[in-house]
């Protein structure tokens, strides 16, 4: 039987040839509804139950439709609205003042690239090391506290993370900067990477570590070059998902990295980013900016989904290798 539940009522039994085949295979199969139920055999309450069931199933299908439609609708709408503005200018030019046509989000794309890569350079090794510590030295008291901290960190709303970064960096340096934005994104990225690394390292069987240690290899070598290297596909999955997440973050950047219409001018200066630029354009009253916002949304969604798909493929590959 497949996983679908056979209906106890209605339907005729297996046809003759199927039945013979079943006997030949000698699989004891229940004969669901071997005889056709007639209405007379069912009491009124049974009829009612049957209709309630049919209606219920129909209702569940309707709910599924209701859940999927808006999500797909948004996606298709963005693609439709965004494509007209998609040209070379959009990727390389700076924004033009209101009233002039043309211009693009070159500043925001460069800014996002800088913020995300800076965050990744610091955050990925840090996160991976934290994950290694959580999994390989899990019993220590420090590790238990650390796990609590990381759980709390990943549950903080991203706007509050912006407040943290503001209170730490912007108040101190007295102006918005790429560093402040990086700091905010770091607080989001590190817990994600640490948790996924930990989860994946836990899947590595204990005997692999023991085998390495039995060969006389130092523990740190075993951890880094045998255990961690063996699951690098899985770790990369977590890293890419984390990067996809910080790519789309707006809230922590509006008062840390702020915005900058004139292109990148140093890590100590306000820096534009794709999501913040998108937000600025979306709440503006100007038609040209709205078009830019839609195209920006398309580019952003494209990048984020591409990263997600890549991480999926990597994860599948790493699973195949492990088997």
């Amino acid at each position, binding site marked *: 039987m497949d996983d679908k*539940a056979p209906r106890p009522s209605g339907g005729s039994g297996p046809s003759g040839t199927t039945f013979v085949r079943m006997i030949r295979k000698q699989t004891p199969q229940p004969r669901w509804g071997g005889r056709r139920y007639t209405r007379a055999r069912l009491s009124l309450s049974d009829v009612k139950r049957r209709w309630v069931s049919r209606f219920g199933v129909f209702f569940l299908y309707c709910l599924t439709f209701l859940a999927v439609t808006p999500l797909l609708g*948004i996606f298709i709408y963005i693609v439709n609205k965004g494509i007209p503005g998609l040209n070379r200018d959009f990727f390389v030019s700076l924004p033009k003042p209101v009233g002039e046509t043309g211009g693009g989000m070159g500043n925001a794309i460069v800014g996002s690239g800088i913020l995300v890569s800076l965050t990744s350079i610091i955050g990925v090794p840090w996160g991976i090391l*934290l994950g290694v*510590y959580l999994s390989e030295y899990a019993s220590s008291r420090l590790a238990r506290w650390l796990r609590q901290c990381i759980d709390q960190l990943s549950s903080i709303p991203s706007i*509050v993370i912006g407040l943290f970064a503001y209170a730490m960096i912007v108040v101190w340096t007295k102006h918005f900067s790429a560093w402040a934005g990086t700091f905010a994104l770091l607080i989001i990225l590190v817990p994600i990477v640490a948790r996924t690394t930990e989860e994946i390292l836990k899947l590595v069987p204990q005997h692999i570590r023991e085998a390495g240690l039995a060969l006389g290899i130092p523990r740190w070598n075993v951890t880094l070059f045998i255990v961690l290297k063996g699951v690098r596909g899985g770790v990369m999955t977590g890293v890419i998902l984390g990067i996809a997440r910080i790519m789309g973050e*707006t809230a922590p950047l509006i008062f840390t990295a702020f915005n900058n219409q004139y292109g990148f001018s140093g890590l100590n200066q306000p820096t534009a980013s794709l999501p913040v630029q998108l937000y600025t354009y979306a709440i503006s009253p100007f038609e040209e900016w709205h078009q830019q916002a839609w195209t920006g949304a398309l580019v952003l969604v494209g990048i984020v989904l591409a990263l997600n798909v890549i991480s999926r493929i990597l994860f599948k590959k790493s699973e195949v290798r492990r088997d």
Partner: protein
Amino acid sequence: MSTLWQKDIHRGDRLFQFVLRACAIAAMVLLLFMVVNLGYRSWPAFKVFGLKFFVSSDWDPVNDQFGVVSFVYGTLVSSALALLIAVPVSVGSALCLTELAPRRISAVLGFLIEMLAAIPSVVYGLWGIFVLAPLMRETVQPFLGKYLGWIPLFSGPAYGVGMLTAGILLAIMIIPTILSISREVFFAIPRAQREAALALGATRFETLWIAVVKSSVSGLFGASVLGLARAFGETMAVTMVIGNRAEVAVSLFAPGQTMASVIANEYAEATTDIHLAALGAVGVTLFLVSWLINSTARAIVSRSERRGGAGGR
């Protein structure tokens, strides 16, 4: 000779463990420092307004009057609306996808929904401003006002932006979260339980209800609370469609403001120290509330998972 070599081994290990420890301690100290720092920055607001900060709905940056009530109200109402819509829809469709739909369709839809969960919230907000809000203003709100206008909740002019719009947009955003967790909860239920219900003569829907939904109530509760946590902390999309007016209004059509959206709106432009401190205090409130919700949800989910795992074998 060999002792010397062994000594080298230990040195490497010690160094490695030291680096790991340093990373761990740095992370924890940083978190602690951030919390303390934010608390310190927002302390003036607590000191000046005291308890009034939590009971006053007066938010007037010009006259330095700050109270958090209207934002707490906005956050609560918009999240509650979102949950009210999202929980039935996502639990129902998770049920449909795991139990009823053909396996291939359910796999494809599950994949799509998980992908769509990754769309940044600012993009949802963009869609909310230009598609959902006009739709609400021109079709949904007049319709509701006409037929349900006698209920205070659906009275008043249709602005398009407002609490109801924010709730619906939030619902769309948290559906993927609740749906995928509910799916996992349903997968964890042993098949024997379904077969037992069928064998007792339950219809298909009764089987789903008795064997699947009833035995995963706590897991579903956890999923909903995680969705609630996401709705609570959601900033950009809400800021873009809620209308941003600090007041407590009964009508769902009226514009409002949430804790997250007021910070997003005013923080970069706040000039006076007390205004910044008050916004920081709103942030502290939001932080505490979401911390509470999350730890509750996590406790419930992990307990139900443990139980489901034990019963599965």
